Each structure stands twice: as C-alpha cells, then as structure tokens.
C-alpha cells in the first residue's frame, strides 16, 4: 500500500482522536465530581492509534476490545447515546444497563465484544473472522488488547489458529508499557510483542502508535492484508497511558521522569499542531469542531440522565433465549 498520507487524512485521524479525547476529559470530570459513578479505564494517550486504525475500518467490520476500550469503540463509530447511557446503567444503554462500561456491545457498529477478562477476546475474533470467510462478507475483525495480554495462553492459541486458518483478523496490541502496576519488561520475555508473530508465521509489525502517519500506514497494510484474504497481522502500537490503570489509580509505580518524558510527547497536542501546519484546518475550524463534539456530548449525557433504569423485571431477561 503506497497511498500518500494527505492533510485530509491527518485531519480525519485528529478529529476521531479529539472526539475520544474530549469524551475522556468529560468523563473524568464527571467521575471526579461524583456525577458519574462507574469503573473507568481512561484511554488518555492512546487516542491517535485508535483513530488511525479506525479510519481504515468500515461500519460493518468487527471490533473486539477490552475494559480499556472506549477509544476503540468510538473510533469504530459507536454512537454516544447508548454508550453513555450504559455508563449510567440505564435501560437505553448499549447493554440495557446490565453490562456496564466494561462490557459494551453494539452490533450495529460492529462492536461485538468488550470484556473485562484479559486475553479472552482474541480467540473470539478468530471465530468472527472464520464466519466472515465462510459467508464471504468481506468483513475484517480488529481485536485490540494490551501488552500484558500477550502473556496469557489465549493470545498464543489465537495467533497460531489465525495464521493456520489465514483469517481476516488484525491483532492490535496497544503496548502502553504497563499492565496494572507491572512494567512491560518485567513480565515479558521479548523486547517487542510483535516479535512473537514470527513463532506463528505471520507478519509482526512494531510501530509508534502515537505517530498518526506511521500508525495509519501500518494499520492500512494490516487491514488490506486481512481484506485481501492474505491472513492476519500482529500489529504492536507503542504508546503510553497517562491516567493510570483505572480512574483513581495514583500510578505511583511509574517513575516521574518516565512519565514526564511521555507527557512531553503527548500525541494529542502534537497531532493538533501537525493538522494546523499541514493547512488541513484552521484554529477556528478546530475550535468549531470541539464545540460540535461538546454539543454531542451534552446531548448524550442529557439522554443518559433522562433515561430510566431498567425495570427490576429485566433482571432475568436475556440469560437464555425465548423458550421454544
């Protein structure tokens, strides 16, 4: 794939990233002030990589993600109303209020699995992809996970099976250098997760996930490969999470110099500056975009606030299908 990276593409990535960024900021504000009570795994710092992957995907493509998945879901195009309503455990939420932030599903936009269990999504992505191959529906399946997840058995089983069966899957490892309090290098025997691809005979690519162009190129190649029936790719996007493991995590295990060095390379302000210098948009246009996004956020929050909680009679609905 040697398409050129245009200012328009950069702007598209920035806008997706900024949507994630503004929602994340709003959520953290609500959590701090007690107006939202939910478990929250901030994607702060990982916006650009999700956006640069997201622009290659169709609405019909599938996404399998994790508890730290709001950036992936938004990049995939999930609408704000059902997403926010689920954070508030409302009946209008994506999971009718019964799943919560860690378990979002929204099949209309291809969000098939969000799980709180590390690693369990990878084999499921293979199943979705096998089905796509059987049905020749042209879909690809993106499964995203962290660096820590690359140490669980399911990761290794899934990579072997995907390669063996040449499945249209993209394995996107978001290597933010920590799994909870544990530093990447203390738990992982290889320097780069992507090196593991060699053991499963598939391409493994390590890229700076915070660089819009590099991430866009690598994602484009992986998606194109999957779409063309050439099989899976293990794509490792190097990044960093600025808000700790979960909302409220003091993150004392991250040395200050290390944190500051990453903060100096915060992808959001860098992408914004790049957009401006590329001429793709003006300050005023970016400000107008922020206003537009903020209005959508206000609308979705109001929708969530106005929605009822699911009735108690819902408690045992959807455990099984209707009796035959």
């Amino acid at each position, binding site marked *: 794939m040697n398409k050129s990276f245009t200012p328009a593409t950069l702007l598209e990535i920035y806008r997706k990233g900024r949507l994630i960024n503004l929602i994340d900021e709003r959520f953290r504000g609500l959590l701090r002030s007690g107006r939202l009570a939910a478990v929250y795994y901030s994607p702060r710092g990982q916006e650009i990589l999700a956006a640069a992957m997201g622009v290659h995907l169709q609405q019909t493509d599938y996404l399998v993600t994790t508890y730290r998945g709001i950036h992936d879901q938004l990049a995939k195009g999930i609408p704000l109303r059902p997403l926010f309503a689920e954070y508030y455990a409302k009946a209008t939420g994506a999971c009718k209020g019964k799943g919560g932030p860690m378990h979002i599903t929204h099949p209309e936009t291809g969000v098939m699995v969000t*799980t709180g269990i590390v690693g369990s999504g990878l084999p499921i992505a293979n199943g979705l992809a096998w089905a796509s191959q059987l049905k020749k529906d042209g879909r690809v399946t993106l499964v995203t996970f962290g660096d820590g997840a690359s140490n669980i058995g399911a990761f290794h089983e899934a990579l072997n099976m995907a390669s063996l069966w040449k499945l249209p899957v993209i394995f996107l490892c978001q290597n933010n250098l920590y799994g909870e309090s544990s530093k990447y290098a203390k738990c992982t025997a290889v320097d780069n997760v992507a090196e593991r691809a060699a053991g499963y005979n598939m391409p493994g690519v390590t890229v700076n996930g915070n660089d819009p162009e590099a991430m866009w190129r690598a994602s484009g190649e992986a998606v194109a490969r999957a779409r063309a029936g050439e099989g899976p790719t293990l794509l490792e996007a190097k990044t960093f999470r600025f808000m700790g493991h979960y909302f409220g995590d003091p993150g004392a295990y991250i040395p200050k110099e290390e944190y500051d060095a990453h903060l100096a390379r915060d992808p959001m302000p860098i992408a914004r500056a790049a957009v401006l210098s590329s001429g793709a948009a003006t300050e005023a246009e970016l400000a107008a975009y922020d206003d537009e996004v903020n209005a959508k956020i206000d609308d979705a929050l109001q929708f969530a606030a106005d929605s009822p909680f699911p009735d108690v009679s819902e408690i045992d609905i959807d455990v099984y299908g209707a009796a035959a």
Partner: protein
Amino acid sequence: MPSMNMIQALNSAMDVMLERDPDVLIFGQDVGYFGGVFRCTAGLQKKYGSKRVFDAPISEGGIVGAAVGMGAYGLRPVVEIQFADYIYPAMDQLTSEAARLRYRSGGEFSAPITVRTPCGGGIYGGQTHSQSPEAMFAHVCGLKTVMPSNPYDAKGLLIAAIEDDDPVVFFEPKRIYNGPFDGHHDRPVKPWAGHALGEVPDGYYTVPLGRANVLRPGTAVTVLCYGTMVHVCLAAAAESGIDAEVIDLRTLMPLDLETIEASVRKTGRCVIVHEATRTCGFGAELSAQVQEACFIHLEAPIERVTGWDTPYPLAHEWQYFPGPARVSEALTRVMEF
C-alpha cells in the same frame, strides 16, 4: 490484641508462614513489587526477597500450573488470582492436575498449594468482577474450598490452608476486606476496628479447616451461610426478631456436617444463604445433605436465599445481592410454614 482488617490479617498470615517455613512462597500478578491490587502482600517482597515473593505475568494457567509443580516438589506456594473472575484460565490446572495428583500418585505426593482469590459483589464490578464461583471448586473432589467472613478467621484459616497437604482454593469476599457489610448499602461503611473478630493476634495460630462456627446461637431456625452473607444473616436475625442460629461454615469442603446436623436437629428449620447464583450453587448441596441427615427433624421445607440465576447485573446490584430483607422474609416463611 492488635486490630486488623481482613487485608492486614491475610498479610499477617503470609508473613507468619514465610517466616516459619522456608518452603512457603508467594507469587502472582502485581503481588511482589506492588504488594497486590488489594494490598494483601504489601511489604512481603521487601522482607523476604524476590525469590520467595515475586511477580508473574498475566498467565493464570501458567501461575497455577507452576504452583502445582512446586507443590509436587514439596514447596508450599501461595498464589494470588487477582479476582475470582479471572480464575477460569487456571481451571484446567486446578481440576485436572492439582486436585488429582495425590490420587494419581497413589498417595505418594500431592499439590499442597493455596490459591487465594477475592470474590463476590456489592462493589458495582459488573459481570466480570463480582462472581462467587465457590461451588465450582467445591464440586471438584481433591480440592478444599474455604471462605472466611472476618479477619480473625481469615488469618487462622489461611495459615491452616498453607499448612494443609492438599490444594486449597481460598476465597476472600472483597466487599468485607475493610469492614463487615450487612447488606445495608445505604448506611455508612463500618470498619473492622472495634469489631470483636477484627482482634487478631500478631503471631501464629490456626483456625482448622472443616470446622464451622456458630456465630449466633438460637433455637428457632438454623441459618447456614459463609463470607459476606454471614453479616447479612446476623443483621436479618436481629431485624426479624427471629431467634436464628447463624452458622458460619468457613470451609465448604470439607464440610462440618456435624455442627450443621446438631443445629438443625435442635431447630427443625433451615435457611441457606449465599451470594452465588442459585442453580447448582453450594446451597443445593447443603440442602441435600441437611435433608438426608435431618429429614425427620424438619418442620418446614429448607429455604435457599441466593443470587439470581443471571450474570451480575450492573443496574441491579442490590436486587441481585441477597440483602437482609430477603433473608428475613425467608426466616419468616419457614417459621410460619
């Protein structure tokens, strides 16, 4: 005597055993350098070094499997699975290997491992952070299953589990790590400080596996419970005014049928309470055993108060959680039968 919460009591148990027995070691995700997500192993790596207290990758099957090998050699590993909801990748190692080694080796050796894991809801954790899967483990012959309800028992039972020659799955109800919780979620949180069972000796002692504890003697009805539900049941007994005998099982396998039987023969009524889902929950086994042992003494059908047969529903945290009102209703029903 020092006052400890459950986290401190568990930490103290591991500290005591690391000190006493050079073959004891502790490992799991984030347990070494960081001291555990719930801080249960805080300070232990510093004190005993990183050969005996160490971190492991996110590899539950690998962690428990390695513990089985260590146990077969003769070590006494204590591993932490961060939440019971994450234990399933290790299910294979627990059921097919740890639980079977003694039988397979004709009694020559076993896997004397302890798997600690926080369980239960009441914390808005949703379906992958609130489960109570104890019955799955009680079902596996060869495994022992323990669930304490207070700091004193937590320490004594954990020491007993570590010393036990068989594999033990040790459930820690995380809702009561920091204080007893009686199900009244709208009331202020109580700490363990000032609670009689928060008084924990510093040194070595054990609470033997397989012995239940009659926490509230009574004459009207026997209540069988464990973990967080112990506090809910005590509250229900107080609020309903029914003279219930509340028995904290402490260990599900081996089960203290003797204590249960003596109580039900006396009261003639039995209510079983657990947070786990109902069908094939441990209450089903308890109900069967009580019926077998006490049939002619029963004056009412045995009642079960349990979680619903559903995943833990985020929006219905307190409808799912069997609170004191539901327990009181069951007590009333068996009394009025």
